[in-house]
């Protein structure tokens, strides 16, 4: 990752860590599905791709994604000036970094408890 991309990824991550709560569900399997679904939908919104949330669960991910995408557009105007393919690349890096911070690199000893 070049320095510019790294810096941009960190800006987007910082926004999630300071403003959102959805990435901190209590178990690994929860965090995996939250990160996966919300960031996938956020990327789709940022890339103007149509998305139809059918189930209640999808809708719930979707509202978090819409708010995050709005926040991103407001705070990081550089997002508006780059290609969709680049947005996708950056968002993939955001997903990798978030998975590391909240799942694979997390020091939270309760994450793999089989029960709630």
């Amino acid at each position: 990752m070049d320095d510019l991309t790294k810096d941009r990824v960190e800006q987007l991550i910082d926004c999630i860590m300071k403003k959102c709560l959805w990435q901190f569900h209590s178990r690994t399997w929860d965090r995996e599905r939250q990160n996966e679904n919300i960031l996938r939908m956020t990327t789709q919104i940022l890339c103007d791709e149509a998305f139809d949330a059918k189930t209640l669960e999808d809708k719930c991910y979707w509202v978090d994604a819409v708010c995050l995408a709005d926040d991103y557009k407001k705070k990081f105007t550089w997002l508006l000036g780059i290609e969709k393919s680049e947005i996708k690349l950056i968002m993939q890096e955001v997903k990798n970094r978030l998975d590391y911070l909240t799942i694979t690199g997390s020091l939270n000893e309760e994450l793999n408890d089989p029960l709630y």
Partner: protein
Amino acid sequence: MPYHLFKCSESIPEREKHSVIKGPGEDITSALPLGYLNTIPGSLSERGCAYCGAKHVIGTPMKDVIHMSHGPIGCTYDTWQTKRYISDNDNFQLKYTFATDMKEQNIVFGAEKMLKKNILEAFKAFPTMKRMTIYQTCASALIGDDIGAIADEIMEEMPDVDIFVCNSPGFGGPSQSGGHHKINIAWMNQKVGTVEPEITSDYVINYVGEYNIQGDQEVMQDFFKRMGIQILSTFTGNGSYDDLRGMHRAQLNVLECARSAEYICNELRVRYGIPRLDIDGFGFEPLSSSLRKVAMFFGIEDRAEAIITEETARWKPELDWYKARLTHKKVCLWPGGSKLWHWANVLHEEMGIDIVSVYTKFGHQQDMEKGISRCEEGALAIDDPNELENMEAMETLEPDIILTGKRPGEVAKKVRVPYLNAHAYHNGPWKGYEGWVRFARDIYNGIYSPIHKLSLLDISKDEIPTDVGFETQRMLSDVNLSDEVKNSTILREYTGEYDCIKGLRDKIYPEYLTKKVSEAV
């Protein structure tokens, strides 16, 4: 992020893994305090017990219920004066405390008969109350009283009553958090699904992890009602027992305090497919985004936007008045379990306050992950602190105010550090737009009260200046402000009512027809 061992805890080296300092450029994968572990012997913890977590925190805010403790009277100590979860039925649950008052002879001979007698007496004394919760304590758990069997007997004899039994004795977990967990799961297993609720709106939520401290629930309920959303149940502040039996029919669980109530949301998600949306009712921006999300879930964004615009226009100039006077004040954010992350970032952004330390008495590592992520570099994070560590932290960090509970708060006062009650509030509610301004006002009043300066003088040895007159809060707070801010015609102090909840109780709300009804017309 280096772990931090307090000087005063050098004789308990295990404490080192319970606190960290957030270093520049570091994140939660480099160090995270341990959490939700038994308190280390020798450490004077500020925690409550698992019975306290189950009953005093989660069970008792239910309003139309006789809450009975099966144990010694002392277990109910934390009731009347410490809790402020009000309700719109004249605070029944605050006014009356019930305990079976177990004594030595009950320990020897058993206390089931006495429990039954107490239950009957209580129902007789309050004939309109048909619901009861019973809480096990250490004593009744140790002698093995079968509370469930007694409750079943009574329900058979009195078919119009319903009883919930919570087996969460004080020793049933490292802290009150063990009790939160137990009562969440017990309610889910025993009661959810036993009542079919009446659905009156197309948009139906459970509002979970909200305890109506000084009216917080009623403030949030007002927003939801204005949007035409039906709150099927509130878990548990100002909540009704039978409403909470019908939680399984909601379309969405809106979760406020994840620390105390995420378990029931998770179970509702797994067992009934109801999704969980975590929200923040504190602070203008988090609250606005929360209302927006709930509304968007139902496709009624315009209703949320109308509220956000109206409330922000009304209250923002007042919040900014306080922000101008609170910027760069240093705060130790030392609540119980969830407010460290609810408040850390938003206090900084919306009131300009610097958070120099966060702690949690009973939080889990998950709460520390959230809290540390949300505070700025240099903050000291402590899990399950002891009193001496707090004193040392206050000496080194020199905070302007502490947001914490009553017990550590009173200790802080003795070393002349003002404190606000983070659990029960000072002049709440603190949720909602107006509530957030009331919180700012309380912080302002705490920091700038002239008494703190006066109290630093020791009349037995210090020279008392006689050439200075009295000082007011404004004289202290405005000393370094620019004329532009001081004389602003836009910014203003809080102008709300002394009691901002009363008016909400008789308010008339817009009627939104359900799709079914409007199609039929």
